[in-house]
């Protein structure tokens, strides 16, 4: 395997820290009061540009035992090689994968056994970051509850006191459904956009040094698979993108983004135009994968950690009803590039991460991993990827595939 410098974004003459990159992206977005829908570019195969290929590591972890999770994660992160230096003396934001409510179950089984990240995995990861010298770890997600602090995370099993005690008080929980305690939102431009030319988000996702995506190992009806990349779907705030908005942005909104980012029947109520007109009404398989790529292009994820201990298969959430079933891969996965890591995750689930559009696992849409590769975000072809830890073959754990949606 050869390593490549991350090529998105590059400005001539220098290499940026994450903060600098995002500062310039925000400035670029702000300088254009109306982000014209004429800024269109189709994904072009960028084989002539180096595609990042980063190591992904995987190991067995059968139980939600804190000590065992922490031990396995520490081995994985050390094998990645540069995580300690990545977070040392840095502010780290961990985007958690907590979906749209904590009040549901899978047939009585708590969500963290199937749908959402288990709090012990989040705690173990955060405690390691603190050990590695992180200044502070902030757990973020757009949650459908009014409180913008740790109270909103409690229903998902996240106990603030426990996290604070374990992490030497270097922890925050922020519900990013609105701008929170910041005066303004951050407007972040999308390079080479598909559907979103910019994102207007809570500043927690930009005023940080390191963005980590902490997610589950699942398939997805519209997106094919949902792991580190799709996890960023929770970044856009309800206050501008939510289903419960009327005609104006609303700091009190708590809704999901179905109308704006799945169906595309409504545009977000951002301060400037941020979506072009290329979305297809009600075609989730067209819209969702493209937004996934637009989010990842705007918010570079520097570490993906996947909770694959206990999950659901066939679809992604409790809202898929009786279609989903619990399964137990017993794995933890980590990688430094979300495209590469998600590709390995897809292969572990028994899928081809470079499968053609509208074929399994991407039966209902386009392959966002391939699209991301074509935009130079990372490699998704498994033969070009290095997998450490126990390796891919030993980790493989086939899932029952999802269904083929009929578009009406």
């Amino acid at each position: 395997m050869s390593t490549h410098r991350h090529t998105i974004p590059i400005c001539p003459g220098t290499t940026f820290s994450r903060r600098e990159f995002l500062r310039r992206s925000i400035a670029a977005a702000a300088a254009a009061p109306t982000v014209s829908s004429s800024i269109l570019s189709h994904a072009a195969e960028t084989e002539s540009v180096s595609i990042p290929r980063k190591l992904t590591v995987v190991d067995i972890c059968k139980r939600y035992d804190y000590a065992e999770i922490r031990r396995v994660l520490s081995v994985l992160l050390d094998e990645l090689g540069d995580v300690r230096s990545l977070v040392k003396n840095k502010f780290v934001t961990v985007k958690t994968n907590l979906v749209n409510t904590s009040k549901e179950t899978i047939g009585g089984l708590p969500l963290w056994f199937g749908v959402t990240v288990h709090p012990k995995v989040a705690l173990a990861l955060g405690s390691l970051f603190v050990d590695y010298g992180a200044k502070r770890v902030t757990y973020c997600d757009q949650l459908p509850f009014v409180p913008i602090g740790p109270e909103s995370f409690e229903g998902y099993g996240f106990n603030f006191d426990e996290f604070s005690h374990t992490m030497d008080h270097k922890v925050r929980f922020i519900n990013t459904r609105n701008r929170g305690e910041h005066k303004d939102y951050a407007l972040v431009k999308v390079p080479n956009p598909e559907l979103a030319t910019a994102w207007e988000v809570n500043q927690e996702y930009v005023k940080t040094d390191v963005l980590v995506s902490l997610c589950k190992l699942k398939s997805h009806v519209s997106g094919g698979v949902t792991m580190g990349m799709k996890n960023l779907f929770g970044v856009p705030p309800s206050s501008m993108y939510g289903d419960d908005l009327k005609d104006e942005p609303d700091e009190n909104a708590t809704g999901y983004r179905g109308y704006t980012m799945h169906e595309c029947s409504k545009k977000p109520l951002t301060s400037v135009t941020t979506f072009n007109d290329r979305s297809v009404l009600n075609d989730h398989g067209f819209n969702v994968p493209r937004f996934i790529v637009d989010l990842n292009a705007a918010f570079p994820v520097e570490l993906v950690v996947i909770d694959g201990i206990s999950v659901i298969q066939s679809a992604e959430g409790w809202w898929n009803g009786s279609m989903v079933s619990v399964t137990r891969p017993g794995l933890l996965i980590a990688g430094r590039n979300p495209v590469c890591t998600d590709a390995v995750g897809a292969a572990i689930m028994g899928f081809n991460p470079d499968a053609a559009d509208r074929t399994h696992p991407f039966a209902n849409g386009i392959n966002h991993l391939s699209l991301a590769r074509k935009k130079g975000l990372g490699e998704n072809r498994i033969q070009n990827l290095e997998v450490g830890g126990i390796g891919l073959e030993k980790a493989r754990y086939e899932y029952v595939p999802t269904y083929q949606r009929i578009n009406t």
Partner: protein
Amino acid sequence: MNENTQPPNRIWRTSGGDNTRGGLFADTTEHSADAVQSVTLQAGVQSPVVVDSKGNRYVADMAGVIHSLNPDNRPRWKQPVDGGVSAAPAVHPHDNLVFIGTHTGWMYALDTESGRPVWKKLIPSQWDERILSDILLLPDLNAVVLNSWGGRFYALDAHSGEEISQWSAGISPYASAAADMNEQVYCVRADDEGWHDPKNGVRCFSVDPKTGNEEILIFVPENSKPNLSVRRIQVAASPVIDQQRGMVYFIVNLDVESTLYAYSFQEKKSLWDKTFSRHLVATPGLLSDGSIVIADMHGTVHVLHPDGTRRFQYPTGTDYCLSGPICDQANNIFLGDPEGNVHWIDSDGVGRIVMTAERAIQCRPSFDPQGRVLIPSMDKTLYVL
């Protein structure tokens, strides 16, 4: 009566030993935790092993390869099929055929000597073709019964694959059918007739496979709360028939709970029922005295007397149980858990872990004719205890 449904037998041609799905072996068995044989496969396995009269084993894996092993667990043949397999196969008692249903909706009849397909049939489905529930074979009718996520049960001619009859399987059917000694078939399904329709709910019913004519035995309406509608109901555990005592046990998941119903053939009603606090997905087993063994989603194994009273409980120590138990005539209980542990529980409820696989065990074990326990795991290994 046919040998697939008479009292416990040694030849486990289908999941649970025979069409009653009771999981009760014909004899007492002896095992040792020190004597575990491992057979390496190609992919993880979530489908129980089935056996023919010669003791040959048939293992279907999640990558879509069917393996046949001889009684000494040495490979005989391998046959790829279209789609992964998590439904237990079924072996014909008279003819050299083993039947397979796949995730891509294909039904196969393979020659047991060579593995070559004798026939194959794509089960029609508008949008979801998966076959996830164990195959049922009716030797007298010479029919194989399956259901597909296209929403239908099918009875197909075992020799040709031609359709004999079909009936509704409802939505998201995981549960396989069972059959009594007269080859009357028993099923569970969740019906969704539309938003808040009073006909929505779970039906436990018997059906004549020749005609598809049904008799509803138990109907449980859906919860009126929108978020707990019939679409949230998992239909996963197969009916289990206690032929000797004239009972059939149904598991109905509703809301976030589950109820076990004990239905009497003679009295034509449920004699008792017991509720569990989470959905149940594992098919129960039967002990020789008619006690019922239930593995729940708290990781606890419950054993109930035939009258529904508690006999004992055994904590597996795991978060939940996804697969059901098997039992022998001495009332030894064997089951695997999602952490790869194999539990051996005696008739007094004292249990221990006798071996641990590297990955999850997500299917019901089987017995071979000599009483050895066959347990496939997601670590691509078949363990023989």
